[in-house]
């Protein structure tokens, strides 16, 4: 509608009215020419000329800012009167008694922040009381702007900043590499991955609007004024954290110290729960991470076994054996690293991952595997040169490479110890990446056990394949302390069933949560494994049993024959089945891991 009061500062001459006279064809023409005229008129947009407010034009000549927002009177009492003082920060406050679930806040946030088509930074859920007095309550949630923001603590590239004055947890979009770890870290499902841009984005409490004295999008759009911005005292939040984001079904606030306060005069009965508490849905699988984790753990296991075996004298120090073994170790490690990079939304900036080393296990994992890759490559080069040197013409260029020094390096125990330790440490970092999240299925030492057992199982199976290969090729003399390669292979084959039973046993433990009374994340995971993920779960166990138990036991029963390539084939089959099983296990690790969430988020 038109602003009728002219702005005294601007010339208020109206623009000439655009003619809306219909064309002649409309009176005189035949059918087809009328169609043409209408099609043309249909494309002719006249709203601006005919109606766009005179006010618009008056304010616009130099593109000058348009003064006070018209909604200000609606929201001025929903903002704090002052800026936060030291020891305070901004926070959302929701008056549940005024929220009726219209969800305007979600769409307003979307529109006013120019989010992409399906991107939302706020969500509205429902909690209800099923048994007893009927009660339901809609709940609007966005970023909690936590005192201990898990997203920020986990970020490997320091793409999050908690503002010292406002307390707003802001995401630096251009710093983000799109690793999505913050999504796994946040118990409130706040950071949203943007596929097109390869980064996550999140609510910044409309910091620009707050700075200009305007209300955040959600605050200014709530028809019933249910959302406001308040100042909270940091000390009070820390002391009284249970009162924040305190809703039935809400995640444990101790983890991040959220700041949103939900107020209501109602008293929620004990049976109150999220309306979607029983909804189970597969989680995102993260395929690159599945392969990266499995392969990197195989590499680490293989390296640890190779170095321990070599140092203890159980493995032959034959240069060729060592060269091939280390080449495999380096190749596996580098392959795992390469796959991990494909997981990133912006892989070009992966190098920034060193920045978060002090706080982020993901950063540490990346650094540890980086070092592992480097050291494994050095050792692979050293052993390769050592193996090749005697076969070379002394006159060749390689002679200038100081093969003796490489040989010294290849046999240096400190380097091998370092490599093995880094391998173990790297897997530990991997496990900690997941343990350091608020997800019940991951946040236990079971994750470490799984990762190390995967490493041991696949690493030893890999070593078995190597040993069997050398055994079959008959390269002599290949004898370690414990006897022939044949004996070694026998020992390795014997280890597999024990490891696989230990691993599958650990994994199966989750099914006991089916009997849990309440719909906790572990019960939901178990339900998923029995439900939507049943097929993958069955084949995970089948593959593990076939590759790690059945095949080795059969082979042992038949008597490890030392019949050359048949043994290699056996080892290859066992390894393939084990790897498939471990990849499936890792798929379930992601797909069945139900995160904590705000109701309906």
């Amino acid at each position, binding site marked *: *509608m038109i602003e009728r009061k002219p702005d005294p500062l601007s010339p208020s001459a109206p623009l000439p009215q655009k003619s*809306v006279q219909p064309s002649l064809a409309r009176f005189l023409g035949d*059918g*087809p020419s*009328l*169609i043409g005229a*209408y*099609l043309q*008129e*249909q494309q002719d*947009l006249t*709203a*601006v000329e005919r*109606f*766009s407010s005179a*006010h*618009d*034009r008056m304010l*616009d000549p130099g593109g*000058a800012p348009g003064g006070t*927002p*018209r909604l200000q009177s*609606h929201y001025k009492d929903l903002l704090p009167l002052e800026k936060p003082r030291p020891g305070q920060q901004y926070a959302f406050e929701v008056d549940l008694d*005024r929220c*009726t*679930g*219209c*969800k*305007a806040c979600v*769409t*307003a946030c*979307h*529109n*006013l922040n*120019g989010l992409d*088509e*399906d991107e*939302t930074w706020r969500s*509205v859920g429902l909690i209800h009381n099923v*048994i007893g007095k*009927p009660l339901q*309550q*809609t709940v609007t949630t966005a970023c909690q702007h936590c005192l201990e923001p898990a997203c920020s603590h986990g970020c490997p590239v320091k793409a999050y900043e908690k503002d010292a004055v406002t307390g707003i947890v802001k995401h*630096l*979009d*251009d710093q*983000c590499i799109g690793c999505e770890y913050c999504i796994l870290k946040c118990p409130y499902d706040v950071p949203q991955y943007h596929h097109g*841009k390869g980064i996550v984005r999140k609510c910044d409490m*409309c910091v*620009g*609007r707050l700075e*200009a004295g305007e209300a955040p999008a959600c605050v200014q*759009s*709530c*028809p*019933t*004024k249910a959302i406001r911005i308040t100042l909270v005292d940091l000390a009070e939040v820390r002391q009284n954290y249970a009162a924040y984001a305190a809703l039935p079904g809400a995640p444990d606030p101790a983890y991040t110290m959220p700041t949103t306060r939900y107020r209501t005069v109602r008293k929620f009965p004990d049976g109150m729960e999220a*309306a979607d508490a029983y909804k189970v849905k597969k989680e995102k699988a993260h395929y690159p991470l599945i392969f990266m984790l499995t392969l990197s753990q195989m590499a680490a296991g293989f390296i640890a076994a190779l170095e321990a075996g070599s140092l203890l004298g159980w493995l032959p120090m034959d240069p060729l054996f060592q060269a091939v073994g280390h080449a495999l170790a380096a190749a596996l490690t580098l392959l795992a690293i390469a796959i991990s990079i494909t997981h990133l939304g912006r892989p070009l900036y992966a190098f*920034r991952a060193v*920045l978060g080393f002090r706080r982020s296990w993901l950063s540490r994992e990346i650094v540890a595997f980086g070092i592992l890759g480097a050291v494994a490559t050095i050792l692979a080069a050293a052993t390769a040169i050592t193996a090749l040197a005697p076969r070379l013409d002394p006159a060749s260029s390689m002679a200038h490479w100081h093969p003796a020094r490489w040989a010294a390096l290849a046999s240096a125990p400190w380097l091998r110890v370092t490599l093995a330790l880094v391998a173990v440490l790297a897997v530990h970092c991997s496990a900690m990446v997941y343990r350091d999240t608020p997800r019940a299925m991951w946040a236990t030492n079971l994750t470490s056990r799984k990762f190390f057992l995967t490493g041991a199982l696949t690493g030893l199976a890999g070593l078995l394949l190597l040993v069997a290969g050398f055994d079959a090729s008959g390269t002599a003399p290949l004898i370690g302390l414990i006897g022939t390669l044949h004996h070694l292979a026998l020992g390795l084959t014997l280890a597999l069933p024990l490891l696989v039973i230990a691993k599958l046993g650990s994994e199966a433990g989750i099914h006991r949560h089916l009997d849990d009374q309440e719909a906790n994340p572990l019960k939901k995971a178990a339900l998923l494994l029995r439900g939507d993920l049943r097929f993958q779960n069955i084949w995970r166990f089948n593959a593990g049993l076939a590759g790690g138990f059945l095949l080795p036991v059969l082979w042992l029963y038949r008597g490890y024959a030392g019949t050359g390539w048949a043994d290699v084939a056996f080892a290859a089959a066992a390894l393939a089945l084990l790897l498939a099983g471990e990849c499936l296990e890792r798929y379930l690790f992601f797909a069945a891991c139900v995160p904590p969430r705000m109701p309906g988020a």
Partner: protein
Amino acid sequence: MDLKDKFAVFMRQRHGRLTHEMVLTPGRFGLGQTPDRLQPDSTTSMVCGFCSTGCGLKIHMKDGKAVNLTPDPEYPVNLGMACPKGWEALTPLKADNRAVAPMIRGEDGKLAPVEWDQALHLFTDKIKATMARHGKESVAFLSTGQIPMEELFLLGILTKFGMGLLHGDANTRQCMATSHVAYKQSFGFDAPPFTYKDYEESDVLVFFGANPCIAHPIMWERVMMNPRKPEIIVVDPRQTETALAATRHYPLLPKTDLPLLYGLAHVLIREGWIDQAYIDANTTGFREFARHVQTYHPAAVGKITGLGEARLLEFARAIRPGKRVSLWWTMGVNQSHEGVRTAQAIINLALMTGNIGRPGTGANSITGQVNAMGSRLFSNTSGLPGGRNFQDAAHRREVADILGIDTDIIQQKPGLAYDQILTGVKEGRIKALWIIATNPAHSWVDQEEFRRAAKNLDLLVVQDMYHDTDTARLAHLVLPSACWGEKEGVVINSERRMGLFKKVSPAPGQALSDFYIFKLIAKYWGCDAMFKDMDTPEQTFQVMSKLSVGRPCDFSGIRDYKMIDEEGGIQWPYSAAEAAGAATGSIPAHAGIEKERRLFADGRFYHPDGKAKFQFGPPQPIPEPVTPEFPFALLTGRSSSAQWHTNTRTGKSAVLRKLYAADSYVEIHPDDASHLKIASGDWVIVKSLRGQARARAAVASTVQPGQLFMPMHDVEVNRLTFPAFDTHSRQPSYKHCAVRVEKDADA
């Protein structure tokens, strides 16, 4: 920048392309901060195109096209607020299944695009041939409450006066027919008396079968602005969002609202809680009504409704005279086999307590669709334009004179109602059907009946903005429409406010506004001379303005579109006399246009005697009661503020899709669920005698034992509903049918 700084930025980048994409800049035009890349170069306001609340949306324009929107802070309806549908109103325009060319179903059964010329020839040739062979009554149309009134009016006079059809109806039959008839019989004209300010000025608000928190969130905004700490009473079998937000909830048994209302009247009369002076001065038929409700003893009514006598008495006490009581209803009442009598029983309560014509009072029907009111007044279907009657010779003459047509062209009785048209199709009497901007293959009660009937048609034309609605999939000919935001016109909201649609976005492909399509059909039919004064929507508006003169809905004081735009919408009546400053009817003399205007301040109604009439009748039995085989009563309704009707538009927004349940669901009481071993989230099959629907169970005590609730937005629901109709309004009863529910064995 030296190398060190460069390295620092390289490692930790605070600014750049991605950051810039999210930058907000001070908005002009009083908008506050807006995304920089969507910074408008002008704005213009228009009315939202979904529901009858009729919110004003400020469209952000860039290079002459809409790029974004925000609710208009100055529009008197919504005061800067909108529900999710309003915020997302521009998104469905860009959907890739827009109809972009006329399409004809070929031999292969597939729709293929054709030129407009060919489509229009096919349309007129086939319909002319059908009428020549089978008579005027063999062709009918079904339209909508979603398009502006100029288009509805043009359609009505094109079909009935130009083409000579007898039968046409609109989907307003499915939502507002009951209120239309109830008001007409009680007040003498279809005139919702209220203005939204009444929400803010009531002491007691009673909602019958209405869930404004979800269905009309912006009206609920106005309730929340009420400073009088009002008592809010909700009468609904289900514990809706509104019931939870209310101060009292009366969960009566389904379809016992009429006995409840008569019981309340009984108590009010017995206790002397009535305004006898008002009754005597302004109404007729009270004595008969009082006699009628004599038998509705509170004890018996308490039993029938399941509320008990004590709660009934408590309810009556709350609405007795002395306070400003406003009574509101919507689809829970309208979509009933006895909706008209129920609505009138509500009107009677307002009349007998004198709660009408004053701030914060009224018997107020909350409308459904954005232009249901425009359809009710001008669609030329159940009545002649301007709320006139086909049966009235004087009315026919007035219309003929203004339109410059022969009076004899005008039929002397209204055509068939929606359900009767479909019966005609089923029985083969109607051979060609033209459907405009509505989706009966989803929305019609007992949907399969419609789908079966549609197979009988020689020609089914569907005119819609999408080529793949459930109904368009059945069509022989699809005509592509421009939609809200792509055309101009006036719509009338719940409080009688006329607001504007504007053209802010180009229509895709060859889509044309319904107005142009009707004009083209007139041209190809050969009757375009009749509409020569109606070359643009605004010219047509002027013709309609003439038709309104002297009618209760007189809006002849409205000069043009620009005036509506400048005033932020204008509520009818607004006659030329009033515009000149004179006192008219209930509106005292004043300068300028009041922003909030209500009817009947002077106690004068529209019956010839100036009085309102008490209307009543005995309650009818529930058409399909529950049985041991179908032991549940199925209730239907809205489930989220993010969905509109058959979801053809709202389903096109990715954001709105996030705001409603992805799967169909059915609410079931925990006792029933545990008895049937159904858990929340389980797939279940709901069956009625007519069909079945698959849905996920949502175990919740919001429904009572023995009742189920399913959202109307899911296409499966109307496979179940029972085709019962109100005898007075022919409105389908969507809110009650008998079903059973069982676990889906295949899930």
